C-alpha cells in the first residue's frame, strides 16, 4: 500500500519534471533558433531538415556584425547616451527624492499625486509635440536632444522609485546624527546614500536598460546612421534587408542582448527587492 503511494508520487514527479523541461524548451525556441542560425555556416534556412544545432559551426556572422556593420559606432553612441542619462538622472533625482521623502512643505502632496498620474502617460503619445518643440531649438538629430528626452522621461520614475526607498529608511538614524551636529549634506552623504545603495543601483540600471532598449525616439529623432543607437541600428538592420541578412540580424540580436542579459541575471536579487521596496508598492 505504502509502496504504491510512493511509486505514484515518484511517477508524478517524473511527469512534472518532463513537463517543465518541455515548457522551458518551448519558451526558449525563438532564442535558440536565433542562436543556431547565427552560428550556422550553410545557408540551410530554406531546407526542410532544420536542426537546433548548427550543422557547420562558424563565427562569420558575428565577424560580419562586429566589423561589417556600424555596430561599434552604434555601441559608442549608446554608451555616451546611457552614461550621460544615468548620471544626470541620478544627480537630479537623489536630492529631489530626499526632499520629498523627508521634508514636509506646501504643495508636496500635490506634486506626488501629479507624478503618479504622469507616470501613466505613455511617452509615445506626446512624441510629435516633443518633436515640434525640439526642432526649432536644433535639438533634432542631436545627442543633447535625445539625452534631454530620456532624462525627462525617466525623471518621474527615478524620483518616485527613490523616494519610496528613502521612506523605508528610519528617520531616527538621521536624527541621532543631527544631534551630534552633522549638517544635512554630511548626513545625506554619510548615512542616507550608503543605506539607499540598492535603490540607487536599481534606478541606475532601469535608466540604463531603458536607454539601451529605446528605439522609437531614437529612430524618429535621429536621421543619420552615424548617430544611431544600438536599438535604432538593429531596427534598421531588419528593416532594410529583410531576407538577406537574417543570420547577421540574428547574430546582431544576440550580441546586443548579451549585456542586458548579464546585468539582469547578475542583479536579479537586487531588482526584485529594489523595485518592490520603492516603485511597485507605489
Amino acid at each position, binding site marked *: 500500500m505504502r509502496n504504491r503511494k510512493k511509486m505514484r508520487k515518484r511517477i508524478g514527479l517524473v511527469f512534472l519534471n518532463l513537463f517543465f523541461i518541455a515548457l522551458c524548451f518551448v519558451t526558449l525556441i525563438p*532564442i535558440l533558433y536565433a542562436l543556431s542560425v547565427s552560428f550556422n555556416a550553410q545557408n540551410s534556412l530554406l531546407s526542410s531538415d532544420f536542426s537546433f544545432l548548427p550543422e557547420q559551426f562558424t563565427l562569420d556572422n558575428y565577424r560580419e556584425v562586429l566589423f561589417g556593420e556600424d555596430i561599434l559606432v552604434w555601441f559608442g553612441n549608446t554608451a555616451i547616451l546611457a552614461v550621460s542619462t544615468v548620471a544626470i538622472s541620478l544627480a537630479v533625482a537623489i536630492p529631489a527624492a530626499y526632499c520629498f521623502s523627508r521634508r514636509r512643505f506646501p504643495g508636496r502632496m500635490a506634486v506626488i499625486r501629479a507624478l503618479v498620474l*504622469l507616470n501613466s502617460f505613455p511617452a509615445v503619445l506626446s512624441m510629435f509635440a516633443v518633436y515640434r518643440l525640439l526642432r526649432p531649438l536644433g535639438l533634432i538629430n542631436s545627442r543633447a536632444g535625445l539625452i534631454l528626452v530620456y532624462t525627462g522621461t525617466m*525623471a518621474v520614475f527615478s524620483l518616485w522609485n527613490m523616494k519610496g526607498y528613502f521612506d523605508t529608511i528610519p528617520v531616527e538614524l538621521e536624527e541621532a546624527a543631527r544631534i551630534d551636529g552633522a549638517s544635512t549634506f554630511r548626513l545625506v552623504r554619510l548615512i542616507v546614500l550608503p543605506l539607499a545603495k540598492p535603490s540607487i543601483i536599481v534606478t541606475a540600471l532601469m535608466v540604463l536598460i531603458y536607454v539601451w532598449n529605446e528605439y522609437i525616439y531614437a529612430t524618429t529623432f535621429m536621421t543619420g546612421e552615424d548617430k544611431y543607437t544600438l536599438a535604432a541600428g538593429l531596427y534598421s538592420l531588419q528593416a532594410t534587408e529583410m531576407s538577406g541578412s537574417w543570420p547577421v540580424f540574428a547574430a546582431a540580436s544576440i550580441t546586443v542582448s548579451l549585456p542586458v542579459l548579464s546585468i539582469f541575471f547578475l542583479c536579479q536579487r537586487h531588482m526584485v527587492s529594489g523595485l518592490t521596496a520603492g516603485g511597485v508598492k507605489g
Partner: protein
Amino acid sequence: MGLKRQKKWKQKKKGKGKTTFYAYLYSAPSLILIGLVVVFPILYTGYISLTNMNVYHWFDFEIIGLGNYERALLLVDSGFLSALLATILWTVVNMVIQLVVAFVLASLLNIQSLKLRKFYKTLLMFPWAMPGYVSILLWKTGMFNSQFGLLNQWMEKLGLQAVRWLSSDVSAFICCTVVNLWLALPFMIMIMDGALQSIDKSYYESAILDGAGWFKRTIYITLPTIRPIIAPAVIITVFTTFKQFDVVYLLTQQAGAKTGSHFHTLLTYAYENAFITNNYGYSSAISIIIFALLLLFSWKFRLKEEP
C-alpha cells in the same frame, strides 16, 4: 529676488519657510526637467488637438475647436472606436490568460518535491531578461516570417501550405497575444511565486486535516491570501497591457513594412495618425482621449492605495 524672498520668509516664520524654500530649490532640477519634457508636451498636445495641423498646415494651422474630438468619438468609421474595442478585448484576453497560466505554473513550481525549481525558474525568466524589442523582432523574423520562419517550416514538413501569419486581422491578433504572453508571463509567474511562498503552510495542514481537497484549499485559502499581495502588480500589468505599443507596432505596423493587418491598439492608432498619415491635430485629440482614460483608471485604482 530669491534672496529677498528668503529673507522675508525668515522673518515671517523662521523654520517653515526656509524648509519649503530649500526643498523646492533641491527638487528644482528634477521638477523643471519633468515640466519641460513631460508636462509641457502634454499641454502642447492638448493645444494641437484643437487645431487642424497636418502636413499641409505645418505653420498656417488654425484653431478649429473640438472638431477632432468629434471625429474620433462620434464618427463610427473613424477607426478610433474600433481601436478602442480592440484594445479592451486585447487587455481582457491577455490578462485572463496571463493570470490563469501564471497561477497554474507558479503552483506547479511550488510543489515541495520539485528539486530543480531554481533551474526551471532561471530558464523561464529569459523572455523577461531579453531586451523587449529584440525578442519581438526575433519572433517576427524567426517564427512568423513566411519564408524562413520556423512556423512555416513546420507547416511545410506537415505538408501544409505556408501561411502569412501577420497579414490578416484575426491571426495578427493571435500572434501579438502569443508574443505578449511570452514577454509578460515571467514577471507574473515571479509575482505569483512570491505570493504563494508567503502563505503560512500551517493553514494547509489544518485544512487537510479537516478533509479539504485541492480545489477547496485553492478557493478558500490560496486565492484570498495572494489577492492583496499580487493586486498592485496585476494593476500595473493591466496598465502596461492596455498601453501596449511595441508588440503590435513591431510585429505588424512598422513604418515602411506593414503586414496588412488592421489590428490596432489605441497607441499604435495614435502613432499611425501622427507619423504615417500625418494628421497631427486628429492624432493629438486621440492622445488626449487616451490620457483621459488612463487618468480615469488610475484615479479609480491606484490612488486608493496611497496612505
